[in-house]
């Protein structure tokens, strides 16, 4: 047995990263960042508001949370719809109670199908982040560039038409990109994306068509990861976020602004037996000194 000799060639084995998107940087050696509130910890609530067609297309892949059973999969189609009709409104109410503004990563299909939801988001002062077309709008290498460009444009144009303003930020489904995605997002006029989870602060990301800001919305802290994948309870999720807050608040005193992303899903955290725990978390965070709620757009803007 032998391997192709090229397998032991390492053409990119040199100082720095193995790509040109960003330079390596130690989080603890950067100039301190300041949030618009002047507080040390920015809590970024990011809600994924998604519509799953009952016919999955799997091009290039099936989104997490998508249909499972043979057609027609009523149980998953309706359970996801529950999130948009019921769970999301529980979340809107919870945010209102603590006067928090959040970012909502919205499929364009939500805007065309349920314009009332968009009106309610806008009225509450939350930010809309473009989150593809619908849950068949996944991106990965293999998706033709023209199709990806059209998907991004359709998402942004629709959300602009229904909400009245053009989204500045983007979040891919499952944070999945092709090699073209950052450049196409920049060409579409977006200013930031939320897909790369390699950091805890916003940073500049070169695309070949100008820089974007990447606002890392840590998937490890999401309800999808902690509750759906790792199957921890909502109470445990709250404990974990509170532990994270203690750590970040301590660091903020020494190193400048820190960011706690709360990436939540209406059909997961918006269920009756979980939402109380989330409300408790919001109330706890709202009471903490040196802590403020910020949208992802505000966080991206703080990079200056």
């Amino acid at each position, binding site marked *: *047995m032998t391997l*192709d000799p090229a397998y032991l060639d390492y053409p990119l*084995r040199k100082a720095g990263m193995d790509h040109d998107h960003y330079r*390596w940087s130690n*989080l603890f050696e950067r100039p301190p960042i300041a949030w618009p509130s002047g507080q040390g910890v920015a809590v970024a609530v990011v809600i994924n508001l998604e519509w799953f067609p009952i016919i999955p297309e799997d091009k290039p892949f099936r989104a997490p949370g998508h249909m499972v059973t043979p057609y027609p999969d009523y149980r998953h189609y309706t359970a996801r719809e529950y999130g948009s009709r019921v769970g999301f409104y529980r979340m809107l109410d919870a945010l209102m109670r603590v006067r928090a503004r959040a970012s909502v990563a919205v499929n364009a299909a939500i805007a065309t199908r349920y314009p009332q939801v968009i009106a309610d988001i806008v009225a509450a002062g939350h930010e809309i982040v473009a989150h593809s077309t619908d849950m068949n709008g996944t991106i990965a290498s293999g998706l033709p560039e023209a199709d990806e460009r059209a998907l991004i444009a359709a998402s942004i144009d629709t959300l602009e038409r229904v909400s009245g303003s053009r989204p500045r930020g983007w979040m891919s489904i499952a*944070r999945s990109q092709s090699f073209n995605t950052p450049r196409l997002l920049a060409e579409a006029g977006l200013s930031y994306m939320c897909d790369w989870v390699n950091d805890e602060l916003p940073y500049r990301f070169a695309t070949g068509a100008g820089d974007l800001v990447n606002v890392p919305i840590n998937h*490890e802290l999401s309800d999808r990861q902690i509750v759906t994948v790792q199957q921890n309870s909502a109470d445990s999720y709250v404990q*974990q976020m509170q*532990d994270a807050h203690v750590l970040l608040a301590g660091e903020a005193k020494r190193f400048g602004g820190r960011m706690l992303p709360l990436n939540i899903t209406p059909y997961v955290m918006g269920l009756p037996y979980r939402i109380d725990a989330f409300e408790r978390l919001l109330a706890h965070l709202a009471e903490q000194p040196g802590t403020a709620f910020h949208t992802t757009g505000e966080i991206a803007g703080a990079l200056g």
Partner: protein
Amino acid sequence: MREGEKDPGLYDFRPYRDRPPLAWPGGKSVAVWVSPNIEFYELDPPANPHRKSWPKPHPDVVGYGHRDYGNRVGHWRMADAMSKHGFPGSVSLSVAMCQHLPEVVADANDRGWEFFSHGIYNTRYSYGMDEAQERALIEDSIRTVREATGQVIKGWLAPALTHTPRTLDLIAEYGLRYTCDLYHDDQPGEVHVKSGRLISMPYSLEVNDHYGFFVYNMSPREYADTLIRQYQRLADEGERSGAGTVMCIPLHAYLIGQPHRIGPFEEVLKHIAADGRAWITRSGDIADHYMQQVPA
């Protein structure tokens, strides 16, 4: 190993009962070593015919970004917690880190940590290598770590745990003293190799942070509790029998350095440091001490 046989013939069977005494320095009951994996994963690595590098088509943005987080964020939190409580690291190193991110390697070296090889990249596997290729991998590892840190590596943890039937014989021939790839015991022991002397160093998949979080789906506090239970039991047994045990805590900065995990983990270090029965040390020191005390 005995290639192609049902029993690979890696070691002799030695039941845990009635082991001869094994004394750790200072009369300690359990040797505790912390093993941060400092790794570089490539965004677009070439394909190995026997194993895919990433579950998704390249770029696997979440997989890559998650690992990269370890070198930008997690390492510094993890390393500071370890230094604060007096725990050196024994690093399982993707040696290409010496070229890509020498700042991280230098930080570990400055803290007095030991390095052993974990391959060139964690996205390049040994499966399918011929002998010359595997020798090139081992020689590259030895040379790269020596040039970057001045250290001569004593140990091996196969890149992404990918082996060939000749790996253990080869690393022994190159003078390495221990392998972290065998999981059959809570004490070091002899490994059968063609030349030289090689021992198995108790590592652990069971209490590896990756297993804790993604195989057993533990919360950070549950994982911390697991480590404390593992420690208590091994310390109790070593104390009772006089046959010192080994506990390894294998870590990944991209997992343990997360903001919801590092606090509970620090409680574990505090607990072990305060207990008084632990020889808090490095894998190479355990190997040296063992090989001196126990004849081959």
